[in-house]
């Protein structure tokens, strides 16, 4: 299935969850938040939230900013 992660196209295996996508992208364990198709997915739901073809996933973390 083809999804967009942080603006980049990616091919992921079927039955991939938000948690799988996060682990693939980053080793960070804290300070991470995820939105799928513009909606916030709470951390507690990552493992149970399946991704679908065409999903837009944003994986965010702390950055310097005023």
């Amino acid at each position, binding site marked *: 299935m083809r999804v967009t992660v*942080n603006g980049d196209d990616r091919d992921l295996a079927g039955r991939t969850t938000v948690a799988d996508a996060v682990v693939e992208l980053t080793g960070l364990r804290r300070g991470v938040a*995820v939105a799928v198709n*513009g909606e916030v997915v709470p951390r507690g739901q990552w493992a149970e939230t399946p991704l679908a073809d065409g999903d837009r996933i944003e994986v*965010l973390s*702390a950055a*310097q900013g*005023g």
Partner: protein
Amino acid sequence: MIMDDLVVGGERFGSRLILGTGGAANLDVLERAVKASGTEMVTVALRRINAQKSADGLLDVVARTGVRLLPNTAGCRTATEAVKLAHLAREAFGTPWIKLEVIGDERTLLPDGVELVPAAERLVADGFTVLPYTNDDPILARRLADAGCAAVMPAGSPIGSGLGIGNPHHLRLLRQAVDVPVILDAGLGTASDAALAMELGCDAVLLASAVTRAEDPERMATAMRLAVEAGYLAARAGRIPRRFHALASTPDEGRPDL
């Protein structure tokens, strides 16, 4: 210290300087500036994970220095976008505190008041402690305070401009218009700007570029700490009135006839 604590959203702060983390050349420079500033709260942004930039390192600086986090919604152009980013920040950092930014354009980075008020109302309803970056407009500030914001944070001048406080009188009016803390946010360039903000009645100062982009951030952070304290004290010390002519400080009485 002879300053009273700053109280925002029910939390007490010994320091009245909030430091933005944006603009520092690297995390070591940032950490030294945070320590020198004496701040107890720093802002952070939320951005796409980037393998080249260590988000962990920034959070390590925060942990080592023991400061609180104030996530921001920098770059948002609409209320909808800012509300979503605030919720993501709460997920990422586990704090309901948010520096709410909704900017009107890239050229000025000034707040868009029309988007700001509904965003603030929504976030207050969602349980956030909302600190909105706003204009030096007393009426808009009152709207934000009425919406339940924990403080209002007017710009002195455009973000990163270093122009200082463009309209001191508006800040005085704004101070009188609201009961919540007023935190001067954005545009300051040097220590006298921070002192003036406090003398005008602001409760605290939030700045980033003035320190992080100074040639010597650690030294400027120290200057800002002292300036905020000086301005706070001066504002409460009852300054002398301005006079058109001189008033001798040495008595004329007893002057010798030479």
